[in-house]
């Protein structure tokens, strides 16, 4: 009791225990909230008050195509990431730890390696005269080099590579949380492995898949570096367009409007994510 009373008094005038958050709140308020709000205001005031930036954004075929591409790439990346991550997470969840730790080590190494380094490696691997094309031609699978870079294929490979750890690690957690007895019971009751998978394992891991998938989708929507380096000009994504509009065209009004659209979509999906997993578990994959 005394201890609690002491702590409550330590920051007079403030709600109990909130004082420690003040530096963080000041920093985030001053250098995060204020600039972002100022940017959003700019989308309706620059060059003159009105909604003309949004009209330009949604009225032009070019920008609508950028929106479409962004959602397409994010959706494809999310779907492929889930399909690849699930079996791996499944194996990792039940594997003997000694063997599993090697795979975990590889996942962490790939995740911690500098983002540009990884993207650079894929640029070299996927180019026309790159190792992958040469190997496929050497094996006689193809006769002409495949266009693997500066298009949707390149972006998908590079992005799935980056997103896999963010899907695998949380999924291992949610698969480990499933009681193996439920599956033993299903088998005892005569369910075939396929039935047990479809009616027990998959539904029970669905919350984990949904949470991880949503996170990958949101991260992909706003990704800048990898699409800019591995994608083509015909399938530019929103983040690259925003950067270009501001940096090269110096069109702050239009850039801010596009940034606001990206922010609104991201925050809406973030809210769903919070509902799904709760604020506490967000970022649990760290």
């Amino acid at each position, binding site marked *: 009791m005394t201890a609690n009373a002491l702590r409550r008094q330590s920051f007079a005038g403030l709600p109990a*225990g909130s004082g420690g958050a*003040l530096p963080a*709140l000041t920093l985030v308020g001053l250098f995060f909230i204020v*600039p972002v709000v100022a940017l959003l205001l700019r989308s309706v005031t620059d060059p003159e008050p009105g909604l003309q930036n949004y009209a330009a954004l949604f009225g032009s075929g070019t920008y609508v195509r950028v929106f479409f591409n962004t959602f397409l790439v994010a959706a494809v990346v999310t779907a492929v990431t889930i399909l690849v991550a699930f079996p*791996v997470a499944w194996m990792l969840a039940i*594997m003997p730890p000694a063997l599993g730790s090697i795979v975990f080590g590889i996942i962490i190494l790939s995740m911690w390696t500098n983002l*540009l380094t990884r993207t650079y*490696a894929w640029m070299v*691997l996927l180019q026309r005269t790159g190792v992958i094309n040469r190997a496929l031609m050497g094996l006689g699978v193809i006769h002409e080099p495949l266009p693997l870079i500066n298009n949707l294929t390149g972006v998908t490979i590079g992005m799935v590579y980056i997103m896999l750890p963010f899907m695998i690690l949380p999924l291992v957690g949610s698969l480990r949380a499933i009681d193996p007895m439920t599956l033993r019971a299903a088998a005892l009751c005569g369910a075939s492995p396929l039935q047990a998978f479809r009616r027990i394992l998959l539904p029970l891991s669905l919350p984990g898949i949904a949470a991880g998938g949503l996170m990958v989708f949101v991260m992909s929507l706003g990704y800048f570096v990898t699409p800019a380096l591995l994608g083509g000009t015909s399938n530019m994504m929103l983040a690259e367009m925003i950067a270009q509009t501001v940096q090269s065209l110096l069109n702050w009004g239009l850039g801010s409007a596009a940034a606001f659209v990206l922010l609104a979509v991201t925050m809406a999906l973030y809210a769903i994510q919070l509902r799904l997993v709760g604020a506490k578990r967000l970022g649990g994959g760290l």
Partner: protein
Amino acid sequence: MLLDYDRLGWLRAALAGFTALVAAFLLLPVVFIVLLSFGSSRWLAFPPPGWTLKWYQELLADPAWIDAALTSAKIAAMAAILAVLIGLLASFSLVRGEFRGRQLLRGLLLTPMVLPVVVFAIAIYAFFLRIGLAGTTTGFVIAHTILALPFAIIPIATALEGFDKSIEDAAIVCGASPLQARLRITLPSIRIGIFSAAIFSFLASWDEVVVAIFMASPTLQTLPVKIWGSLRADLSPVVAAASSLLVGLTLALMIVTALLRRRLSR
């Protein structure tokens, strides 16, 4: 028996084979870039016609690369220290505070992690242009501290949640001041969380590209900005050498982390 490793039957071979393939996929670019950096072909032919160290010599002889690396290290170290200190204070009130809007505050402080970096990048760039911090080390550190803060708060708050507060209360009952109890009982107990926070916030700044591209000036470049510029110009093998050194650094960091965690958790 789908979750029983010993009774998976043929499925186990299939899953293990697939896992091995994905592990190889994850390892491929990392190994490839290291091999490539020792290859003698300027056009990045692979397998290389011969082996050489000349790209490393070229890299280390170029003051621009060394400057960029030092700038990155300086900014990342400052951002990590700030993020851990501010995050530590914030974690105490997020985990133990009893006030309305605590969940909202947690959501707010974690938002920089979720918001697309490019939005924050142009927002802070515009703001810094106006107040004269664009292209300065101070501006860099502030922007990177904000991006690193969630990576500091999450491990510290998680560690603090796992710490039994009655131990701290016991120290206070035995005569320690609340501050003493926190410094000498609580902080040592959550040191693994603090240590992870330091590593993650350092990496968050060290690897950050997007804000850095906007914030950089001709005289102030971080390593990722330098690599980005080289990648846009050509695919020079010098970048492979720089990348390999970064891979080496990552490996060293992973080993140190594993060793320290083992020692700290004893």
